[in-house]
């Protein structure tokens, strides 16, 4: 059985390893360059000093962070490409795995030898699944390293894209994509339709989980701070900010998507007003009673691994379910 699986998929495995090596040839030099700039520009040290607390009176790193972002903006888009790698696993490993057998009728050859189709399916999936897991681990480790400076200088590891290509979640995505492809193959029984179903299904599930489920994994925190305080929100804390704005004394959100910093030290990147006029301006605009506070609803950066674990377990559970359904469908096929 092992020999058969290897003989059937060795070419594909070789191509994948070559593709991965080519990808490494691009990412390793750019990663090294990014890490070097990250350290040499003083951004790394600055961020170390800044810490990841949600409030800070320091603004120095913001300029360095923006400079870094400007230099490596293109890499963020490369990062988006990494989001699609697990999908390729589903389309090119998962979908054809069984569908090609049905399309060519070779399942009738294999299932009438001395091995049950359940054993055949489990060994095939076990070996391909192991290979995909190894690929996913290499991918996750590599991309986590490669993307770390971009995440630190930008929106943090919890932000979209950054979360999706780091940590352990890519392993969950890859195995889910594989199982989805296999299941689609047992439904469509033809390679191309199975690939199409995998593409659509994968995109749908990822988008639904990303937009509807993920923000609800844990209850978000809220924090508010007077607009006159010299402690303001740390934009480089890596927190995942759901929404922010200015609230009045009644707690009503009066200016969404903006924060005012009246007491911030000079050189701040934010708009600066005189501390006294700042609040009275808002009152004159009819926004309610002072004092005003800046308010955010957010997930703290240190919940990264909790979120990663929940997301990974969710996708592994979906993968297991799809695999179970695929095996059930195998019994109906002749």
């Amino acid at each position, binding site marked *: *059985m092992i*020999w*058969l699986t290897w*003989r*059937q998929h060795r070419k594909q495995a070789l191509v994948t390893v070559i593709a991965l090596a080519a990808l490494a040839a691009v990412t390793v030099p750019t990663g090294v360059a990014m890490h070097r700039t990250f350290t040499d520009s003083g951004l790394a040290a600055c961020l170390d000093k800044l810490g990841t607390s949600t409030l800070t009176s320091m603004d120095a790193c913001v300029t360095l962070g923006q400079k870094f972002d400007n230099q490596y903006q293109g890499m963020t888009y490369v990062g988006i490409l990494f989001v699609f790698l697990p999908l390729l696993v589903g389309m090119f490993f998962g979908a054809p795995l069984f569908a090609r057998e049905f399309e*060519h*009728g*070779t399942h*009738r*050859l*294999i*299932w*009438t*030898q*001395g*091995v049950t189709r359940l054993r055949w399916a489990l060994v095939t999936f076990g070996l391909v699944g192991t290979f995909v897991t190894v690929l996913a681990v290499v991918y996750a480790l590599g991309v986590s390293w490669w993307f770390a400076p971009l995440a630190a200088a930008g929106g943090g590891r919890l932000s979209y894209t950054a979360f999706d290509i780091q940590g352990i979640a890519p392993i969950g995505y890859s195995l889910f994509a594989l199982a989805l492809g296999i299941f689609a193959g047992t439904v469509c029984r033809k390679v191309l339709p199975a690939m199409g179903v995998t593409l659509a299904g994968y995109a749908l599930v990822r988008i639904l989980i990303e937009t509807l489920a993920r923000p609800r994994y844990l209850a978000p925190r809220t924090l508010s701070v007077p607009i006159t305080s010299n402690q303001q929100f740390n934009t480089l804390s890596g927190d995942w900010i759901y929404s922010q704005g200015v609230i009045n004394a009644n707690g009503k959100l009066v200016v969404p998507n903006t924060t005012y910093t009246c007491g911030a030290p000079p050189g701040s990147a934010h708009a600066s007003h005189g501390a006294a006029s700042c609040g009275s301006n808002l009152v004159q605009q009819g926004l309610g009673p002072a004092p005003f506070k800046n308010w955010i609803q957010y997930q703290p950066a240190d919940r990264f691994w909790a979120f990663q674990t929940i997301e990974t377990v969710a996708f592994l559970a979906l993968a297991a379910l799809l695999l179970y359904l695929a095996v059930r469908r195998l*019994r109906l096929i*002749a």
Partner: protein
Amino acid sequence: MTGIALETGALGKRYGRTWALRGCTLHLPAGQIAGLVGPNGAGKSTLLHLAVGLLRPDEGKVRIFGQDPRTAVLTDIGFVAQETPLYRDFTATELITLGGKLNQRWDVELARSRLAQLGIPADRPVGKLSSGQRAQVALALALAKRPRLLLLDEPAAALDPLARREFLQTLMGAVGDTGATVLLSSHLMADLERVCDYLIVLQTGHVQLAGAVDDLLAEHRTLVGPRTASGALPGGAQVIRASHTDRQSTLLARIARPIENPAWAQHEVTLEDLVLAYLAAADTPTAPTCMGK
């Protein structure tokens, strides 16, 4: 008589609401080379798939040497599926290795020497061989299991007449050596006439006729005589198919004993006449249903 190789009892298989096979009762004695005949869609593949355990029956039972093919005996069945599917990028040698890995009983030498005899290159991907050669590779793989029952689903359908004759010859040769029971489906009567000594006629999911070819030929006659109503024959003869002109009737009948009525001229039937008569009869409402045995 060495027992029953294939036995089905009221076997039925349904796809959605359509029964592909229903009420099928059959006993195929061991040692026979049986032809399974019927038009496309008659349920030939379904019956073979049920016999080899690829399908699960919706009703009734199927037994191979007394056992359920879905639980045991796969080692005893050799199967060549329709269009002789093989991994096209595998060489014949690799396919033989594959069979060895997946089967407990596997005769590597048998497979190799068969291919060598036929001059089939063992080191070329089978996708690059002719379809006749591919069918031979598939047959060699099925034979290497040393099966007691060999099931072939239209193995020769895609071959040209010459390759078909060659394939059937090698099949007969191999079966003669091993003594396996063979059930071979086809819609080409000429093929079956050449090789079969047992015949099963399947039509729209029912067994129309089953029996040893010699017995069937002995039991049936074409009778030509004065115009008569069907079924009004003496001596317990059963009319399978009747055609009439103004003056005379031509009947294909199953007769229990010779008819000694000089008004009727009797002719022996060919296998093809017989099969066509039963298939045509099945289209009429008075058709006999599953006859079996």
